[in-house]
């Protein structure tokens, strides 16, 4: 290639030894270095560093930022929740994110290969990550299916969740819908067709099943060509949610009653800072919001060029993730304020109507402002009639409307839709909103599937027989088939099981082992010099302090807290929808559901010790075999 002093030699085949130090980052052994070098030649890469940043952002910024953070903010002290949140971001979020990105960029392999490079006994960590990612992608895509369902139903006038359907003889509304609300009815009856308990599983509902198949097809379309296609899609999935959030911010702030919600949210309740649950929730939220431990970040970073400045990217991604949470909670709370004010005013008008009808007062005589004094007047003037009416008069309170803290699918599909149906041009807002949910969900799914596919395509055994498209297709097909469980009538209960247990405890363990592996097995100093060789930056004392001390301690305390929470809770319970009453009731899990929960937690956590044990045994057998031969 024209450089003076250059000579051409033929590289000997693998295993025959290789003299001379390489120009590449230091591998563990010459053979390892050969393999790494050869794989480097064929490894796909991001088109430019911006695609990598966008991929990380679209993975990290997901539905949790929209529907979990506002709930936590509301529960744990409003504006004062930001204090533990930012502290945890600095102590835990940024260091762990940088660690995963650095590991991926350094090892240039998926999670299994990366941890195997650090120590063969630790490949179990990679396997556990893949298992956890598999569980996550199974149930996460069901949310995308629901978003598709709502998106397709947004093109109607009136919106189907804004009116109750009529009953059979057309004289009134459907009973279940009357008892609950029209949005709840649409979610529980029309979308999920939920059964009264987890034992009654019912059959697969074809409508959500179709939407689920479509969701998996869209995911397959995006990951089909690897980083080539993913890199283009992430521009869209990373940027569109922000466009929609800004539009919603402007719309939300101009809604009537939005300021009520904002004032409510941002009023700090400083006494919540003394509650340990506040700090634990902040730590947990940072941890799960960044998507650590699934192997997706390692996978994304492995497609980077080694000289990429992942420190800067780690800080940027974690800051953007947290600011998106705060930003979306502003939007959510202005919507909350609007909904609460609307319901409060509705409640007031119902009371006014009731009083006007009972006492035959002039229409329009009672208003919101003179209601209280008039009530007293009526109570004193017509005591007997008032005492008849009194039980039916609801106490309307704006506080109690704002206090209904909702998270998860309930927030996204019930509360938001209730607010949207009362806006003007509600079809447009509905389409925008569900499109945003879709891009958030698909963006996260790209990361989840990358975590599963990267180790599979890295493995030579599999990639020799199957092309990348075939592997992706197979993974999508299997996940789609299994996740049909969530489209059954009891599917939402199984969804809640997966959501709460599949990837919580195991992830804490995985990340703990990851930090210990990098700091103490691989060596913090060695890792630091590797990073310096790669990127040119020396490792700051801040990162060293966090990786070696603070973050592991935090994770251990989170782990202990979760374990003790599970143990102390006794029997696990769930919320079931009671159609006759039109509300949620608490029920106990049956024994086979508990068995599934334990299986979920065990199957990913047990990978770590089991694989280590397996490798140890094969190692011993090999040693004994070579000893017998020699």
């Amino acid at each position, binding site marked *: 290639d024209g450089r003076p002093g250059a000579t*051409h030699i033929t590289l*000997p085949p693998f295993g025959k030894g290789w003299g001379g130090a*390489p120009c590449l980052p230091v591998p563990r052994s010459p053979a390892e270095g050969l393999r790494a070098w*050869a794989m480097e*030649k064929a490894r796909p890469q991001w088109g430019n560093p911006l695609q990598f940043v966008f991929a990380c952002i679209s993975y990290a910024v997901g539905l949790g930022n929209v529907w979990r953070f506002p709930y936590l903010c509301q529960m744990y002290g409003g504006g004062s929740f930001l204090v533990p949140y930012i502290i945890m971001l600095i102590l835990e979020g940024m260091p762990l994110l940088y660690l995963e990105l650095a590991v991926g960029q350094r090892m240039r392999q998926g999670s299994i290969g990366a941890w195997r490079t650090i120590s063969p006994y630790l490949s179990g960590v990679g396997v556990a990550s893949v298992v956890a990612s598999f569980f996550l992608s199974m149930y996460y895509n069901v949310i995308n299916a629901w978003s598709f369902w709502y998106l397709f139903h947004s*093109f109607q006038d009136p919106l189907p969740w804004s009116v109750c359907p*009529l009953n059979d003889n057309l004289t009134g509304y459907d009973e279940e819908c009357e008892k609950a609300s029209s949005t709840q009815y649409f979610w529980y009856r029309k979308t999920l067709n939920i059964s009264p308990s987890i034992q009654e599983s019912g059959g697969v509902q074809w409508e959500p099943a179709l939407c689920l198949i479509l969701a998996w097809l869209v995911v397959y379309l995006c990951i089909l*060509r690897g980083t080539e296609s993913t890199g283009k899609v992430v521009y869209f999935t990373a940027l569109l949610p922000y466009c929609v959030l800004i539009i919603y911010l402007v719309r939300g702030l101009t809604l009537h009653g939005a300021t009520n919600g904002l004032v409510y949210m941002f009023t700090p309740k400083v006494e919540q800072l003394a509650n340990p649950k506040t700090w634990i929730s902040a730590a947990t939220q940072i941890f799960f919001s960044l998507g650590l431990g699934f192997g997706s970040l390692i996978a994304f970073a492995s497609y980077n060029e080694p000289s990429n400045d992942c420190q800067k990217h780690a800080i940027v991604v974690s800051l953007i993730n947290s600011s998106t949470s705060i930003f979306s909670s502003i939007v959510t709370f202005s919507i909350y304020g609007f909904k609460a004010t609307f319901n409060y005013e509705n409640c007031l008008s119902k009371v006014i109507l009731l009083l006007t*009808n009972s006492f035959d007062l002039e229409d*329009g005589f009672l208003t919101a402002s003179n209601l209280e004094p008039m009530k007293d007047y009526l109570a004193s003037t017509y005591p007997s009639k008032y005492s008849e009416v009194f039980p039916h008069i609801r106490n309307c309170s704006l506080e109690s409307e704002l206090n209904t803290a909702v998270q998860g699918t309930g927030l996204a599909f019930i509360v938001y839709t209730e607010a949207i149906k009362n806006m003007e041009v509600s079809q447009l807002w509905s389409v925008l909103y569900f499109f945003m949910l879709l891009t958030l969900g698909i963006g996260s799914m790209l990361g989840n599937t990358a975590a599963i596919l990267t180790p599979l395509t890295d493995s030579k055994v599999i990639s020799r027989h199957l092309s990348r498209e075939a592997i992706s297709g197979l993974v999508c097909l299997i996940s789609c088939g299994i996740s049909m469980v969530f489209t059954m009538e009891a599917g939402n209960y199984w969804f809640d099981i997966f959501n709460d247990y599949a990837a919580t405890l195991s992830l804490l363990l995985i990340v703990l082992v990851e930090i210990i592996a990098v700091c103490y097995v691989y060596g913090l100093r060695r890792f630091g010099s590797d990073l310096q060789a790669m990127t040119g930056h020396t490792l700051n004392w801040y990162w060293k302090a966090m990786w070696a001390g603070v973050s592991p301690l935090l994770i251990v305390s989170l782990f202990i807290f979760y374990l003790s929470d599970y143990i102390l809770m006794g029997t696990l319970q769930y919320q079931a929808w009671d159609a006759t009453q039109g509300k949620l009731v608490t029920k106990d899990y049956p024994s086979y559901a508990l068995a599934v929960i334990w299986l979920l937690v065990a199957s990913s956590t047990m990978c770590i010790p089991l694989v280590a044990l397996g490798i140890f045994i094969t190692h011993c057998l090999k040693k004994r075999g070579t000893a017998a031969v020699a």
Partner: protein
Amino acid sequence: MLWPLFFLMTAIHAELCQPDAENAFKVRLSIRTALGDKAYVWDTNEEYLFRAMVAFSMRKVPNRGATEISHVLLCNVTQRVSFWFVVTDPSKNHTLPAVEVQSAIRMNRNRINNAFSLNDHTLEFLKIPSTFAPPMEPSVPIWIIIFGVIFCIVIVAVTLLILSGIRQHRRNTKGPSGVDDTEDKCENTITVENGIPCDPLDTKGGHINEVFLTEEERLTPL
């Protein structure tokens, strides 16, 4: 001499039309709620119109004798605006059965509402439930149409990508056999510099592996 008869008639009327009387219906209007500033005042002329509409509804019932406006009696008009009404038979001695009146009003509910610029919620006949209009269901639900469109687009895109991938793969394998899987054959020509093997420039698109550029700066220049 006519006065006692007049009082008798009013007494009978008063008996026929009373709150909770047999076959009497309560009507409630919320004019200000419906019309806001354009609300009209409820006076005897409006009552006359109401009686006329009820009489009209009764006349539309087949096989019923012609009901006159004077057969419709109103009483207990409150400020709300609410009142009770009954429909008497031509002899003005007893009231028509509630079932008949109910079905007649239900048939013509729309006309009555329109006469007062109100709707089913603001002009309420208590005890006469209004029939809701059945929702307009298109033959194919809209969501399936949109689903079908998006589904077809995605399938076409997936097929195109897979086919182009297969075509690219075939072109690669048909190409020079020397450019084969380096991992399998483990043989390749590389550049050695100062006894150190370095990755040559990637010929794919002139893409320079920046690792080696930075590495070069740290190596002793030749």
